[in-house]
């Protein structure tokens, strides 16, 4: 490799000389660098997965208290007449909890205010809604399963320690002591948190009640728009480019455009959506669906963003169908259009479907453009009530809700955000697995 130099003394034939050893050591080092690089990459992946599962797992569990509340007619009338209805109901819960403790044989000198602090602020409105919905239950004693306050919940999950409680205004050490005893008596326990999957988002002050339901529904609405929009347009565009397009300037222009759009930063599509759909077409049409925080606009933006991906994969599948199929169809008298729609397209369908699912999965995880078209709702998102709300909003989406939670001050929301990420990733993994299975099952080698 270098200029030949005469060695001073002929080295032994059995051993390597110094230069060979050096070259071999450098070879070993080089290999080691490669291995280390791969290991770093994989270690990062493991670290990431470990963080996701470790931080988000707890969102699927929630601490709740079993309290039997006697629903006495006079007390409820009094609460309904009062100005602060929920605080009156809160007192009812406090009394019921006190009675529950006495029954379980737990003695405490805690005052009512501190005791009720264990229960979530949501509990009183939950109780009131139950009473208003079930007036026939008044006069009986009903067993409720109230949410525990976020810090108590955090104590059960190991997020809140006694050290933190000593310094916190939101929870006291004596409350934690009491909770320990209540846990032994079976009044308070951690269970599966179905409300996280189905419930509405909650206000900033009650992370324990925050749910991911509206985000899942909003993402679903957007995916419907994206699936319809990007697959139809994408397949039509690919058919034209692959089967009909003459080789000319216009076709070249389209091709260059598609490959460039594939690399445009996603936030630019958000700006496009804001400027064209919301600020221009929205007022022009006066349509409810074309406004800020509507899933329809989010879907349109993601459609434009996903199009290049779907066009590229669809064209590859169309190209994979052998020319002999087309020749045979043309030979028995089919028109070009019939050839494409009756023979080429069905044969390419599995590949197109696979590519489309992967494109949809990409769109599902995209967040930056959604911030700009207002799918991050500052006030808590709630489930849509009719089809107009389903597409017209105010909607949120899974990545947008995760971002919204990450901006809130209470770190209890981080747990929710990671929980949301687990749900998002479950969807993504399912879609990608489906794509792989479809490819394995239907892929045809010509």
């Amino acid at each position: 490799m270098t200029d030949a130099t005469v060695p001073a003394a002929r080295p032994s034939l059995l051993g390597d000389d110094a230069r060979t050893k050096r070259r071999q050591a450098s070879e070993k080092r080089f290999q080691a660098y490669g291995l280390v690089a791969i290991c770093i990459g994989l270690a990062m992946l493991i670290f990431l997965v470990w963080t996701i599962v470790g931080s988000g797992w707890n969102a699927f569990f929630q601490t709740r208290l079993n309290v039997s509340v006697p629903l006495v007619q006079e007390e409820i009338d009094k609460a309904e007449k009062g100005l602060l209805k929920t605080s009156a109901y809160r007192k009812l819960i406090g009394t019921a909890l006190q009675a529950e403790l006495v029954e379980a044989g737990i003695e405490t000198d805690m005052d009512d205010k501190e005791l009720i602090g264990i229960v979530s602020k949501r509990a009183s409105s939950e109780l009131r809604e139950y009473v208003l919905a079930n007036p026939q239950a008044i006069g009986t004693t009903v067993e409720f399963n109230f949410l525990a306050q976020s810090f108590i919940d955090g104590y059960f999950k190991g997020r809140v320690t006694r050290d933190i409680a000593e310094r916190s205004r939101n929870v006291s050490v004596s409350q934690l002591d009491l909770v320990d005893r209540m846990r032994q008596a079976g009044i308070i326990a951690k269970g599966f948190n179905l409300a996280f999957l189905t419930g509405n988002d909650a206000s900033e002050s009650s992370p324990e009640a925050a749910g991911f339901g509206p985000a899942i529904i909003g993402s679903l609405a957007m995916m419907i728009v994206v699936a319809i929009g990007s697959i139809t347009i994408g397949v039509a565009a690919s058919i034209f480019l692959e089967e009909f397009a003459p080789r000319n300037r216009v076709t070249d222009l389209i091709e260059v455009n598609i490959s460039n759009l594939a690399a445009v930063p996603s936030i630019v599509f958000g700006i496009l959506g804001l400027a064209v759909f919301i600020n221009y077409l929205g007022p022009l049409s006066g349509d409810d669906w074309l406004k800020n925080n509507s899933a329809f606009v989010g879907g349109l933006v993601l459609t434009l963003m996903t199009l290049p991906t779907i066009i590229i994969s669809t064209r590859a599948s169309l190209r994979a169908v052998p020319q002999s199929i087309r020749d045979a169809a043309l030979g028995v008298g089919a028109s070009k259009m019939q050839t494409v729609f009756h023979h080429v397209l069905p044969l390419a369908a599995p590949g197109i479907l696979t590519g489309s699912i992967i494109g949809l999965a990409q769109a599902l995880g995209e967040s930056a453009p959604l911030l700009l078209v207002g799918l991050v709702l500052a006030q808590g998102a709630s489930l849509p009530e009719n089809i107009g709300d389903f597409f017209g909003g105010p909607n949120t989406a899974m990545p947008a809700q995760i971002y919204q939670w990450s901006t809130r001050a209470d770190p209890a929301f981080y747990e929710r955000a990671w929980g949301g990420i687990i749900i998002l990733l479950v969807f993504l993994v399912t879609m990608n697995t489906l794509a792989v299975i479809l490819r394995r099952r239907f892929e045809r080698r010509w």
Partner: protein
Amino acid sequence: MSISYLLLVILALSAVGFFLGRARALQSAGGDKRSLHSQPQHYGWHVAILASAPALLVLVAWLLVQFIAVPNAVLQAIPQSEIDAVGSRDLVMTQIQDVANGIDQAVAQGVMSPDQAENIRTEFTNVRDRLAEIGVALGSDVTPVVLEGAQEFRLKMNAWSFWRGIVVLLIAVAGFALALARTHKDFRSRNVVENAILVVLVAAASIAIFTTIGIVLSMLFETMRFFDSYSPARFFFGTEWAPNFRGNSDLGFLPLLWGTLYISVVALMVAVPIGLFAAIYLSEYASNGLRSVAKPLLEILAGIPTIVYGLFALTTFGPLLLGLFGQGGALGVQWMADGRSVITAGIVMGIMLIPFVSSLSDDIINAVPQAMRDGSYGLGATQSETVKQVILPAALPGIVGAILLAASRAIGETMIVVMGAGATAAVFYESPDRYLNPFEIMTTITTRVVAQLTGDGQFNSPETLVAFALGLTLFCLTLLLNVYALYIVRKYQEQYV
């Protein structure tokens, strides 16, 4: 006639046309399919298309003209003094439309009779309160001029809508009749139908062009409005970024560009060595088993949504670095004050980019012909010497292209920097710490686009419009990088094919 009814009628007409056309063609052939020029359904589609397509096109065109012409005509009648009092033409028009929609709703709900709605006067009725009763909230009190405008607007809109219905229906019926009259066994309906399909295909393909035009135009218009109130030179060469929603802000581009480039460089410093070495090992050394496991696993890193990386930077990686380099940290140095910093966002983004660099480089290294390797081995080079002195030089243009593509991703990345890099822009004049220290908070172009567009500012203020100028610059920057990268990759590919 409202649009939805119009659409329903056209749809029904097409459906009827389909069956009539099919039946008529078969009848003209005496029920014998074989003597038809085209398939029976082609005759059906022919009628359906002629009944709907021209009508729908006219409807869309009509709507476009209507929604531009009517507001313009109404605004013409409004005195300039009134427009100045409210602020701008757009604002006056918004008020007029709101009032008009409110009155329409009141009529629809039966709160007002159509006569009442036409004779409503600001002198006798508080229109705002009246509309609030039925759930239409208006931003301000209704002035006589606005109410007059709203009435004018309703009148004109109704007239346009009325004629729209009649014209569109006439065209639909005419198309229907024409198609049905043409239907005969020798008529080449397949050609007509297939041409129509081809038009749809072309339209779908040109959406890519329209998207690009839309992106450029939408940002260009708003950018020009921004440059009306803020000089381009001050924007592009401004060295201070200090937006102030009360106005009079410094909106210099350079601090943001610096932050973006700094974070991207950190990300590339992580991604390029790791990605490149991983690619070399996978393509030159790894056994098939390792390759088939490690490659897809590494590519997962590129499939994870960026929001996950953002949250990882915000809640895990930032605090981890703070625990090492922050006050009372494990290393005993006080370099970091906040979990968010250049290095937090940079490293996390670097992890995301590893598979970008590695997969692209892997493809490029594999494209180097085996003969070149064999030649090198034949001269006595070791494998690593072959990689360093033969393969890498041969693959270099492609690898540079891959790195440029990764750089363009890094520059356009949003969520990781929004959540991991913080909101304060670099400051050039105070101390080198505020723009050189990688442990400092530093904001980027994409972060500012999100912040300025989701902030509370007035939409027409330069503080909001600057986001479009930033977006356009970002678009151009990434476009240039991509085009250049693709150019390099293509040029290289041609050498060995």
